[in-house]
């Protein structure tokens, strides 16, 4: 994405190259190649350039409004009373109904759902990264019979839609008494995130130089020690990237909990809770509370996104490599 530096930019379609680019640090200016600098010359490039410039800006602004508008509308409505929303969905709040927020957090249980999501996704992201990079490391750097078989077993999992396995999965979970439990959901999230994590991280481990690991081996370090103390720290950029990908994927998951985690409403994750709230608003009629719930769910993501937006974009577009 930078042209000034010779380093290869994040080019989708080639995991190894992406991995190589990521090792060089996600830092550094990542402005688009031809974004104008502050000193962009005033000497326009002819009428075509100027018309196109105005034309493109109009469309870009239009989509920006369409992208941000609904979210701003939700935030605004979260401070209005239900009556005011139904009367005029456009009007600004006459007074700030903060009680909507406390309704959403306490009575609509958004607080509990958020905590549930944090527990589940916290556990599953850590587990995914640990198990995924263990498998990826062994497959990338050790030669043993069956290596390719195991690799394709994992990577092949990216090719089929999750829903194909869901009905039997429900009964497998039932037999192991894992339905409607946090640890059950965590294990399912880990298992279904392994294919991409193994695929991405093994490509990443292959790009790392082997000289440091060899030096550690000569010094008498065991295999597992080399992994945890030498290779894993070196793989940090890749871990961050695939970690963000997994975090967002698991945080946003709706289908899996809807199958194996529906028994106990107190254990719902945030996505289920919001869908539930939306369904209830139909007859309960607390519109302001619904929008407050939405806003509460959006805000943490917004903060994370604004702070880490470069990594988030890189981490999510890395998913398109598969």
């Amino acid at each position, binding site marked *: 994405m930078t042209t000034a530096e010779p380093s290869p930019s994040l080019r989708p379609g080639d995991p190894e190259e992406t991995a190589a680019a990521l090792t060089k640090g996600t830092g550094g200016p990542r402005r688009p190649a031809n974004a*104008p600098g502050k000193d*962009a010359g005033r000497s326009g490039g002819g009428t075509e350039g100027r018309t196109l410039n105005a034309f493109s800006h109009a469309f870009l602004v239009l989509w920006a409004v369409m992208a941000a508008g609904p979210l701003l509308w939700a935030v605004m409505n979260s401070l209005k009373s239900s009556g005011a929303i139904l009367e005029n969905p456009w009007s600004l709040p006459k007074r700030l109904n903060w009680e909507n927020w406390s309704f959403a957090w306490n009575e609509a249980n958004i607080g509990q759902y958020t905590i549930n999501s944090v527990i589940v996704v916290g556990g599953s992201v850590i587990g995914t990264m640990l198990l995924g990079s263990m498998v990826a490391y062994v497959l990338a750097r050790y030669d043993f019979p069956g290596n390719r078989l195991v690799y394709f077993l994992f990577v092949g999992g990216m090719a089929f839609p999750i829903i194909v396995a869901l009905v039997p999965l429900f009964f497998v979970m039932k037999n192991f008494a894992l339905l409607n439990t946090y640890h059950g959901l965590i294990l399912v999230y880990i298992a279904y995130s392994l294919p991409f994590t193994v695929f991405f991280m093994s490509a990443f481990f292959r790009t790392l130089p082997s000289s440091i690991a060899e030096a550690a081996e000569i010094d008498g370090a065991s295999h*597992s020690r080399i992994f945890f103390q030498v290779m894993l720290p070196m793989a940090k950029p890749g871990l961050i990237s695939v970690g963000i990908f997994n975090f967002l994927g698991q945080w946003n998951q709706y289908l899996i909990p809807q199958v194996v985690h529906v028994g106990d409403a107190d254990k719902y994750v945030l996505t289920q809770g919001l869908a539930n709230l939306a369904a209830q608003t139909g007859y309960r009629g607390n519109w302001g509370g619904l929008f407050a719930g939405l806003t509460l769910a959006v805000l943490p993501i917004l903060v994370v996104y604004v702070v880490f937006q470069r990594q988030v974009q890189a981490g999510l577009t890395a998913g398109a490599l598969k």
Partner: protein
Amino acid sequence: MASDGPAVAEATKEAASPPGRSGGGRGERRVSPHHRTYLKYRFVAGFLAAPLVLYGVLVVSPFFQTFYYSLTDWTGLSSDFAFVGLDNFSRLMEDEIFRKALWHNVLLLLVLPVITLGLGLFFAFMLNVGGRHRRGEAVAGVRGSHFYKIVYFFPQALSIAIVVVLWKYIFNPVGGLLNGVLSAVGLGQWQQSWLGDPRLAFWCVVIVMVWANVGFYVVLFSAAMGSIPREIYEATLLDGAGRTTTFFRVTLPLMRDTVQTGWVYMGIMALDAFAVVHILTVNAGGPAYSTIVAPVYLYNKAFQDGQAGYATAVAVALLIVTMVFSVAAMAFGRSKDRIEF
């Protein structure tokens, strides 16, 4: 199960250091080659054991069980069932609602990538090449392209549930944003019941999915455009090509791989669409099955109607469609004249 990994690794670490060895010495050198091979395989097995068990039990085995159950009349409610051969599949062939559901998935497969990737390419090109020329430069992005990308991409970071719940209320006939906007700009007669109208509900699903995904492709395609060397643009400009020509004759062919990847990605999403339909539409697939998609149908059959065997037959059909799509996308995209740059 997850905690097995580190525990095993820890044990390996302990065992790997011979007892009584002093310091971080050269003990490893004295280890015989046989012992070294043993250590290596023990390490490999230790690292693979827990993930393989987890993956095998929760992913691989359910996947194959699906084929097995699709040949049975299992209800899912009790543990007894009988083999019925291909009965479930012949029933699928005549199932009006299933055909409707699958058709909606195929329609999404045709419509979604065209609109989403088209808009993504358009905005990415505008961001990267649509700007005013800087002195001595062939191409220029628009001012503030970084800001646009942040705004466009944000919906992608949101949970699909949030997006869909939000849109459910945008489409709401009373108090919804869409009808509100229409009446505000004097188009009150265009107000609709949107999700309640069987002719429009499906297109509401399309709108939501496009809205949620365009930003992703803007960022993806921007990255790909940024990696095209500017010398190529300069050469094109010297040859007197306009921007439309540049886009279709230079930019697009050079981004072929990325566009293809995006197409496959969007296609997989179109064959799913579970969360959107399940949360957004009236009665999850209504009104009058106008928005039903195969995954929602499968879900209802398995977990509401007590027809687990039949639901797995739907799953097998869905898998076949996905496979056909993947193979077609790969065959279609195989380019003989790949351009390196």
